[in-house]
């Protein structure tokens, strides 16, 4: 049974593409067949973050228009063979992305993959609404910052109203993923805490990804952080989130957070 996920946020720059790549690789790492789709027509970047930018021949719109067959457009990852990318078109008109076309592509992908992850563009325009349209579940990527939280609230409203599931009277499962979190800044009262964000958005938490230089380093070299630096705190957070998506119970911890002074003192004594 395949699962269609949309990675969305409303606001740009919060980590949707990073998250799509990291979760896609983490899920594929365990043997599942995964495809990640870039819906950002005209501003594609998932290919770049995955290090496949030089291998793009056909794209999502080519498939919709019938210029290419789906298997021709899919790019297989060189590191994990069961991870695939369907890139967005860089040049073509955004209107070429049609609802019927997207539905047909997703239906075809459902037959071949366990996980279909749609990387939404920022905003609430066509690309964003089509990315979420056929989703079974949504990952809402939020930074602990006012504008991101506000836009996430808006996106949650749209997920409940404008998706195919919502129109059938069903619900799109919603998972909140808080990224670029700093436990130290939150403890100092300089950043919204996890509890603050959860209370405001009242949405189940999928994971907490701490701010880390490993995320930038991974995008610099074109590799998902979960592959490039699997032991880093952000990667461990993404692996935890991937396990929760599969239904496993994983304790919610902030990976890599400095332990409190008490535990530090205690650990030193014990050592």
């Amino acid at each position, binding site marked *: 049974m395949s699962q269609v996920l949309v990675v969305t946020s409303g606001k740009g720059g919060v980590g949707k593409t990073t998250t799509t790549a990291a979760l896609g690789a983490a899920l594929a790492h365990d043997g599942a067949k995964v495809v990640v789709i870039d819906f950002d027509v005209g501003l594609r970047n998932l290919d770049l973050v995955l290090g496949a930018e030089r291998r793009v021949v056909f794209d999502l719109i080519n498939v919709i228009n019938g210029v290419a067959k789906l298997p021709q457009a899919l790019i297989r990852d060189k590191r994990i063979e069961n991870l695939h990318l369907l890139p967005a078109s860089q040049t073509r008109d955004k209107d070429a992305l049609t609802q019927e076309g997207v539905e047909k592509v997703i239906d075809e992908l459902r037959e071949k993959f366990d996980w279909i992850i749609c990387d939404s563009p920022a905003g609430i325009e066509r690309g964003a609404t089509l990315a979420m349209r056929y989703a079974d579940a949504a990952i809402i990527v939020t930074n602990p*910052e*006012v504008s991101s*939280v*506000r836009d996430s*609230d*808006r996106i949650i*409203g749209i997920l409940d109203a404008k998706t195919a599931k919502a129109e059938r009277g069903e619900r799109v499962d919603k998972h909140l993923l808080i990224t670029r979190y700093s436990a130290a800044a*939150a*403890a*100092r*009262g*300089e*950043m*919204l*805490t996890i509890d*603050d964000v959860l209370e*405001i958005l009242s949405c189940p938490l999928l994971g907490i990804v701490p701010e880390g230089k490993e995320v930038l380093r991974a995008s610099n070299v074109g590799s998902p952080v979960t592959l490039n630096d699997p032991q880093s705190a952000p990667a461990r957070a993404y692996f935890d989130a991937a396990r929760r998506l599969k239904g496993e119970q994983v304790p919610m911890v902030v990976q890599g957070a400095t332990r409190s002074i008490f535990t530090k003192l205690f650990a030193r004594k014990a050592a």
Partner: protein
Amino acid sequence: MSFLRLFRSGSAPIARERLQILLAHERTATDQPDLLAVLREEILAVLGRHVAFEPDKVQIKVDRGKSVSTLAVDIEIPNSRTAGALAA
């Protein structure tokens, strides 16, 4: 944690409160997105029956608070015409 929070001096509590107020309004406002525009039109229509004023000299301000919001309508009415309107 809540005990520690008393000593927090950062700006995060302000962010939290601003978001709570804003989103409480935005969630209800989606049913009636143009409430302010409708109010403005109807208020001006009623006033227009009694006094003459320039539509450009009307300022509508709203301040959304936690438990109450205020709507302030500031209309500049020229003195001479008002006198005429009252006399008529």
